């Protein structure tokens, strides 16, 4: 299924899934869509990069470094990717 065919909720769920793959210790945490991942969930640079890599691999969307600030929360990430 291409991202264009996915609902926003599905994209957000996929984004969260990739996050917990990268950081399994966050599994089970309640991660609000608007929570800053790096500030509030202590995602470090490497976790973040691994997450970006996973999203890139999953959706085939290019995410340049300059766009990293646009993926600071689950919600923002879902929006960014959804624009696909």
């Amino acid at each position, binding site marked *: 299924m291409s991202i264009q065919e996915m609902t926003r909720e599905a994209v957000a769920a996929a984004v969260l899934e990739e996050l917990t793959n*990268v*950081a*399994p*210790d*966050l599994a089970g945490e309640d991660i609000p869509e608007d929570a800053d991942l*790096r*500030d509030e*969930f*202590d995602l*470090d*640079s*490497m*976790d973040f*990069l*691994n997450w*970006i*890599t996973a999203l*890139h*691999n999953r959706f085939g969307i*290019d*995410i*340049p*470094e*300059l766009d990293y600030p646009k993926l600071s929360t689950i919600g923002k990430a879902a929006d960014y990717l959804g624009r696909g």
Partner: protein
Amino acid sequence: MSDLYRMPSLGSDMESATLIEWCKQPGERLAKDDVIAVVETQKGAIEIEVFHDAVMGKPLIEVGETVPVGAAMAELEGIGDGIEQAPSPPVEPPAPSGRRRASPAARRLAEARGIGLERLRGSGPEGAIRLEDVQRAVQAQAPKAPLPPDSKGTGLGMAAMRQAIAAAMSRSKREIPHYYLSHDIDLTRATQWLGAHNAELPPDRRILMAALFIKAVALTLRKFPELNGFDRDGQFEPSKAIHVGSATAIRGGGLVAPAIHDADQLELGPLMDKLRDLVARVRRGGLRASELSDPTVTVSSLGERGVDRLYGVIYPPQVAIVGFGTPELRPRVVEGEITPRTLVTATLAADHRHSDGHRGGLFLAKLAARLQEPETL
């Protein structure tokens, strides 16, 4: 010929461990270095390996069972097919006559790896311990390394880790006369270079500033052997190899610093791959015993969301830790003008018994110079 696989000693302070998982089933072939099982220690879950080709035999303990170091865990078949000697368990009562007979080469290796000769069985004349005996013990023993993380839900976890960190850091502050130096390093060029480098690459090939830091530290250390190695009872034992422990924080508390081996010899790409892999497995709890070889030095980098500078505490028996604060734009005077530049504050905490501030200062200066030429890293 069959032999027993025994609970390995992964550190002189490890007494026992709990079997979490068998990774091989009876009848499966085991190649040298294969992971045979995962065990939970007070330092977390660790994958344990075999050191010779063999075939997995009958398990002798069950998942959840806690057994002491040296206890038989499983039978191994087929040892001796092309293998001269099975690994002999490192358990033998001390010789009655006091000092153990051991060859100089065996003594040196044992001392370097913190292996007590009294625990070894000697295969030489009159029970003398030979190099080979110690090498076997080394293979069976992961060095004292920073902690692998708590893996979830084992119950041993956080408290044991906290305890281990507490012990190490207390010892450090008690025994090591630290000196501290700090130096602001201009990262403008490195940041630009890294941005340009990463712009053309997919995320899985992008490099983090942390990798540059580790490589720059490793290369610079080549000229500062007094900062790379171990304190052994007050004697400095330099290390030819440069294994950089990369301090990685664990969410919710705790810290590990698994080694990037021979960091000075790795290209940035492979170094980044190692770093990425290590961090991922810190999160998952999958660090392997063989990856816990002693780092010879530690690098701690606060990343992008930290504070200006950190003052590290040396992880014994290492003799130095290099810290990097958060890089940020700050005013700097360049050619008489106040100019915004990306700066990072690098710090060095080093063991004053083995080096002096003058050399430490030279080290930070050289490190700064290295980081001005990111393309050479």
